[in-house]
């Protein structure tokens, strides 16, 4: 397909009002970025080995802390998860999940609380599928870091996320909050 050169007049005041593209351009841009992200993640893993996950997790965590700075602080896990949902947005739509025979979403063990989160929509998963890469790699750790960073910022407490299962339509993760650590 030939690339069309579109001529027009540029005025500085148009910058916030006009994007200069349509849905097809957005799609193209998204897919190019997906491919770039996929290649970067794959190369990072090749060069740094398992250390890649730690680096990317840290980057995501910093991003999560930054994004959640404006959110209300709370010690209520339910409220924190709602706020985390706002930070992550529609592209990382998640819900709490529990097996049918478990009474509560939240389980308390000594000084820590765990809750299972089912991530249904996920741009990371879509990027991996676009580039043919396996799940649980560095890009997934970017999202884990992002999630943990957001929760830590909102609750002012230490947290971590573990992967229970990854699938093509949803991924199950366990969020652990440690009450003792800040």
């Amino acid at each position: 397909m030939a690339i069309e050169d579109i001529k027009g007049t540029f005025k500085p005041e148009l910058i916030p009002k006009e994007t200069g593209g349509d849905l097809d351009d957005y799609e193209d841009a998204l897919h190019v970025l997906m491919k770039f992200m996929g290649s970067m993640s794959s190369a990072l893993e090749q060069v740094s080995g398992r250390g890649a996950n730690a680096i990317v997790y840290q980057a995501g965590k910093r991003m999560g802390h930054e994004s959640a700075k404006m959110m209300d602080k709370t010690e209520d896990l339910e409220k924190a998860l709602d706020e985390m949902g706002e930070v992550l947005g529609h592209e990382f739509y998640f819900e709490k999940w529990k097996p049918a025979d478990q009474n509560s979403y939240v389980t308390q063990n000594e000084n820590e609380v765990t809750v299972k989160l089912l991530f249904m929509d996920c741009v990371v998963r879509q990027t991996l599928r676009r580039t043919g890469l396996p799940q649980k790699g560095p890009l997934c750790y970017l999202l884990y870091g992002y999630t943990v960073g957001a929760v830590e910022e909102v609750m002012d407490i230490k947290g971590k996320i573990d992967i229970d299962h990854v699938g093509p339509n949803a991924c199950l993760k366990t969020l652990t909050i440690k009450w003792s650590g800040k």
Partner: protein
Amino acid sequence: MVEIVIDEDACVGCGSCVEDCPNDVYEMDEAKNKTKVVKVEDCMACLSCHEICPAQAMEHQDIHVAKRLYIDRRVNHVLERII
């Protein structure tokens, strides 16, 4: 509530879904040598079973279907014309 329909004519009884499901939603029906759904209430609609099933013998109803923005819409338009 999720509902899983198994196409018994298509199921080859390989048991891949039984092994792959993290929540033990499926079991093998030894008499029929087919998969059967035993704990649908624990299905989280991850669809790993769909991916692993060589016969595409199952259908999940009333689930959140994740966005698939990785699919090129132009490819879809071409496919729509063919199918």
